[in-house]
C-alpha cells in the first residue's frame, strides 16, 4: 500500500466559509465539500486533523443494499472518517489511493501542529534568597493565539496557561492557579508574602523548576472556538539560586544610605 503525498493547489481563490456548530452551508458542500476537523493534545502540543473523503466514482458503492441498511442505532457513529493508512506525514495533504480498486474511497487528510510558546519563570531577589524570608517566584506568559492552515483554510489554536507547578528544589513543590507578579507590580514591599512566594529554611544552592500547564482551544475556517480535551504541560527555564542567612547576604547598596535595601 503506497502512501502518496501530493500538494494540492486548490483552484478556489476565494473559498466559501464553513459555519459555526459544525454546520456546513449547502453552497460550501457543493463547492468544496464539508471538511471534518478535530483537535487533540499530541506530542506536547495541539494537533488539528482535518479530512475530506471522496468516495470514488459517484453513484457507486451501494451494491444491492436496501435504503434502510444504515437505519437505527447501528449507524450512530460519531467518529471522523478513519484514516488508518494515511500515516503521519505532515505539511501537505495525505492521499491514500487503492490502486487495486478504482472506486474505493480516497481520503484527503491534513494535519497541522501547534505548540505553546514556553513561558519564563522569574524570582525576586534575582538569583538569591534569604533563609526564613519570602522569595517571590512568578511566571511570565501570555494567552497565545497561533494561526495556521488546514485543508487550505485558516485554522487557529489558542493556548491559555491554567496552572503552574513549581518545584522549589528543597523537596517542596506547589501547584498554583495564579502566575504571580513582582513585588513592585503588586505594590508591596520586598520580602513580603505573595500568593506565589516560598520560604527556604536552609542555606544552600537550589534548582527551581516550573512546569506551566496550558489548556487549548481551536477554531477552523471562522467557526466557533472549540475546547480541546486535556492540557499541555510545558517545562519553563530552570532557575539556580543560592539561599543564605541574612548575615552572609551581600547587600545591594550601603545599608546606611539605603536602610530598607535587601539584607540591611
Amino acid at each position, binding site marked *: 500500500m503506497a502512501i502518496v503525498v501530493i500538494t*494540492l493547489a*486548490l*483552484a*478556489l481563490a*476565494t473559498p*466559501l*466559509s464553513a*459555519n*459555526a*456548530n*459544525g*454546520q*456546513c*452551508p*449547502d*453552497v*460550501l*458542500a*457543493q*463547492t*468544496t*465539500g*464539508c471538511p*471534518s476537523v478535530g483537535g487533540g493534545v499530541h506530542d506536547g502540543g495541539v494537533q488539528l486533523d482535518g479530512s*475530506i*473523503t*471522496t*468516495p470514488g466514482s*459517484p*453513484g457507486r*458503492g*451501494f451494491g444491492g443494499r436496501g*435504503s*434502510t*441498511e*444504515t*437505519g*437505527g*442505532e447501528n*449507524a*450512530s*457513529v460519531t*467518529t*471522523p*472518517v478513519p484514516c488508518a493508512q494515511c500515516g503521519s506525514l505532515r505539511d501537505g495533504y495525505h492521499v491514500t489511493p487503492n490502486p487495486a480498486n478504482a472506486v474505493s474511497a480516497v481520503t*484527503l487528510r491534513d494535519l497541522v501542529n501547534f505548540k505553546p510558546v514556553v513561558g519564563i519563570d522569574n524570582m525576586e531577589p534575582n538569583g538569591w534568597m534569604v533563609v526564613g524570608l519570602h522569595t517571590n517566584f512568578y511566571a511570565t506568559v501570555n494567552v497565545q493565539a497561533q494561526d495556521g492552515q488546514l485543508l487550505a483554510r485558516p485554522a487557529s489554536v489558542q493556548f491559555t496557561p491554567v496552572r503552574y507547578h513549581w518545584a522549589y528544589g528543597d523537596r517542596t513543590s506547589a501547584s498554583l492557579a495564579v502566575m504571580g507578579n513582582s513585588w513592585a507590580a503588586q505594590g508591596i514591599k520586598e520580602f513580603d508574602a505573595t500568593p506565589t512566594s516560598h520560604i527556604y529554611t536552609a542555606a544552600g544552592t537550589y534548582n527551581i523548576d516550573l512546569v506551566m500547564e496550558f489548556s487549548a482551544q481551536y477554531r477552523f475556517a471562522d467557526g466557533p472556538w472549540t475546547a480541546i480535551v486535556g492540557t499541555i504541560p510545558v517545562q519553563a527555564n530552570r532557575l539556580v539560586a543560592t539561599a543564605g542567612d541574612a548575615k552572609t547576604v551581600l547587600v545591594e547598596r550601603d545599608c546606611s544610605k539605603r536602610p530598607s535595601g535587601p539584607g540591611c
Partner: protein
Amino acid sequence: MWNIPRLSLVALAAALALSGCVPSGPLVTPAPEPSSTPIFATEDEALAAATAAYAAYVKMSDQIFMEGGANPERLGSVATGEQLKTNLEGFREAAKKRYRSTGGTAFDKVALQALSVDSPKGAGIVVVYLCEDVTKVDVLDDQGVSVVSATRPNRSGYEATFNWSSTSPTRLLLASKEPWSDLNC
C-alpha cells in the same frame, strides 16, 4: 365559627364571577384541546414525511443557488433554526462572490435514526441519516467558470434533524444538517 367558611364561599363566588367561570346551565365536558404534539402513526410515516420535507428543502436550496442566492429568505418555507441561519449566510456569501449553481442535488439512503413523538413543541421530532449527491451540481463564477474544488466529495453523509411545523405542507422543516462520516455514502 361559620363566619369564615361563609366568607370564603363569598370570595370564591366573587372570584368565579370575575373570571367568568360561574357555571350556568348543565355541565358540559369540554372537548379536549387540540394537541400541538404531532404524532406519526408509524415510523414509516415519519420517514416518508422526512423524505418529502428533505426533497422540498433540496429543491428550494437548489433554486436559490441557481438564481445566484437571490431572495434566500425563501428557504424559510422549508428550513428553520440553525439550518436556515447557516444557509442564509451561505447564500449571501455566494451572492457576494457572484457564484451560482447549475444542476440539481440528489439524495438517497434515507434512514430513520430517531422519532420523538413527545418532544416539546415538536423540536427535533424526526432525525434521519441520508446520503446527498451533488455529482450533477456545478458552481460557476460570474465568468461562467467552474469553481468546484477538485477535492469536493460528490457524495456525503448527513444527519438531518427536523422540527414539526403545522404550517408546512410536509409537516416538517429541516432544522439542522450535520456532516456524518460513517454512512458509506
